[in-house]
């Protein structure tokens, strides 16, 4: 059992390594993609500088806390797109019958699928997030918490995308819904939760998991709360288990597209 898991992990790491190496063939394009994504994210500093010029705090957050929010979204989003980029195009694989190539491999289907591509620009997102966390200085403990929550955030991003993407086994056009809901986490997550009220706040904590991926973690980093910490970890684990179950349930319905695909 343990050997099988170790083998699977090794294959995953090799897959990610070769994905990145393939993207690095053209070094200029690779570096431009990464560098410009950092600049792209940094441009939003202007937005918050303007808003903090108008008010000393926004939604109960200081400028430093907003930056932590941004850093965590960028790092989590980046990590999930570096390791599991294919999960974000899962509906395309399902609808067009492109899963066949993964089904015949003697390894775990789901892990094989989701680790089969890497989004290069996501490296820029990840680096930006880590740099912001280092600059905002939450302290050593805070930085370790930031890294931990980057992992739980990436798990939430990936699991949420997997859950919605797996619905393609039953429904068409889930690609658009998946994309919009995942980007919804980014759009809402880069604003403080203090500006949302009532039903919308509830939806953003429990339906679109912005609260669990970003807001709770930032609260814990700023002021440690063990209950919140374990709520986030538990939610990430539960969402993952649910999304994996939905994927394998849907996989039983999968019909091959009779498509000849060469994976290189």
């Amino acid at each position, binding site marked *: 059992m343990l050997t099988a898991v170790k083998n699977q992990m090794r294959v995953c790491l090799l897959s990610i390594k070769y994905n990145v190496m393939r993207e690095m063939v053209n070094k200029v394009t690779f570096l431009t*993609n990464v560098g410009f*994504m950092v600049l*792209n994210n940094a441009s*939003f500093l202007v937005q918050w500088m303007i*808003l903090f010029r108008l008010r000393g705090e926004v939604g109960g957050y200081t400028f430093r806390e907003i930056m932590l929010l941004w850093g965590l979204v960028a790092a989590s989003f980046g990590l999930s797109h570096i390791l599991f980029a294919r999960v974000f195009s899962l509906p395309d694989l399902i609808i067009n019958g492109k899963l066949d190539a993964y089904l015949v491999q003697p390894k775990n289907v789901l892990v094989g699928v989701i680790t089969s591509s890497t989004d290069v620009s996501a490296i820029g997102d990840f680096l930006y997030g880590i740099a912001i966390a280092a600059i905002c200085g939450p302290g050593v403990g805070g930085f370790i918490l930031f890294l931990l929550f980057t992992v739980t955030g990436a798990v939430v991003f990936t699991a949420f995308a997997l859950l919605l993407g797996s619905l393609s086994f039953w429904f068409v056009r889930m690609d*658009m*819904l998946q994309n*919009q809901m995942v980007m919804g986490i980014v*759009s809402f997550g880069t604003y403080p939760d203090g*500006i949302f009220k009532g039903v919308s706040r509830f939806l953003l904590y429990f339906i679109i998991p912005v609260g669990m991926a970003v807001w709770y973690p930032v609260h814990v980093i700023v002021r440690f709360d063990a209950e919140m910490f374990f709520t986030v970890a538990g939610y990430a684990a539960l969402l993952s288990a649910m999304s994996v179950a939905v994927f394998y349930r849907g996989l039983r319905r999968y019909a091959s597209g009779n498509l000849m695909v060469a994976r290189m």
Partner: protein
Amino acid sequence: MYGWGKRNAAGALSLARGRGGRVKGMPWRKYAVIYRLVLLENLQYAANIVVGFFSYAVFIYTFIMLWEYMYRTPGELIAGYTKEQMIWYVMMTEMIWFGSGAASVAREVSTDIRGGNIAYLMNKPYHYTLYVLAKYTGEWSVRLPMYAMLAAGIGTLMVGPLPGFPLTAVPGMAVCVVLGLTINAVFKMCISLFSFWIEDAAPFQWLYDKLLLIVGTMFPVEIFPKALQPLFKLTPIYTVFYGPAKLIVDFSPEKCVEILAAQAVYLAAGCGLMFLIYGKGVKKLYVNGG
């Protein structure tokens, strides 16, 4: 979707041509045919556009919540805008942003150049850049009115009608919006045409988009420090987003003329630049066969 459009556009062009392969009548007729075909195609798939409303609603909802929080007292002014004007300004700029879908122009040009399809398209009896613009116009002709209706609905429901909105000025505003998004498409195409020299122009598109998004759509120019405002008015921000949205929230005939004049200059300069880059780019083209 694009493959269908191209095949049909090519077929329709042969109908639009007279004997000897020359286009009868006005040279713009072939672009009108392309426009009409893409328009009809997009009308068939109008329901797909509705799915995109979710992202727009997310953006707008967030900004309504944000400005509700930022304005603490009734009647307060920020950078000369009331809360209602500020929210309507953002709704209009985001309506242009989402309704124009200018990313499709950038994507199509980059894909054509990188994939080699440009070698096939540049030999057709049209100018490639104008062909892309005609197609793009057919796309937004369906999408933009749908987003405009959505914006008007959300705005009226959540913020209330825009105070002092002159219905008679709608044609002038519409012309400004159309010119604005055409200028945006031309500049995005200019950036994508750099794919002739560099493999991937997408990173430059990100920066251009962010400049427009942050400085042009999220805030009116007046909110920035006074020293920067004249500088922003020289960038595409003024002609693409700020100008048209400012007219909608605070219309004045003098402002309308000023914005239209700026747009005419920008469009002429943008098209000149686009033809120049394309002309130089196609000379760099290597076709590897296949």
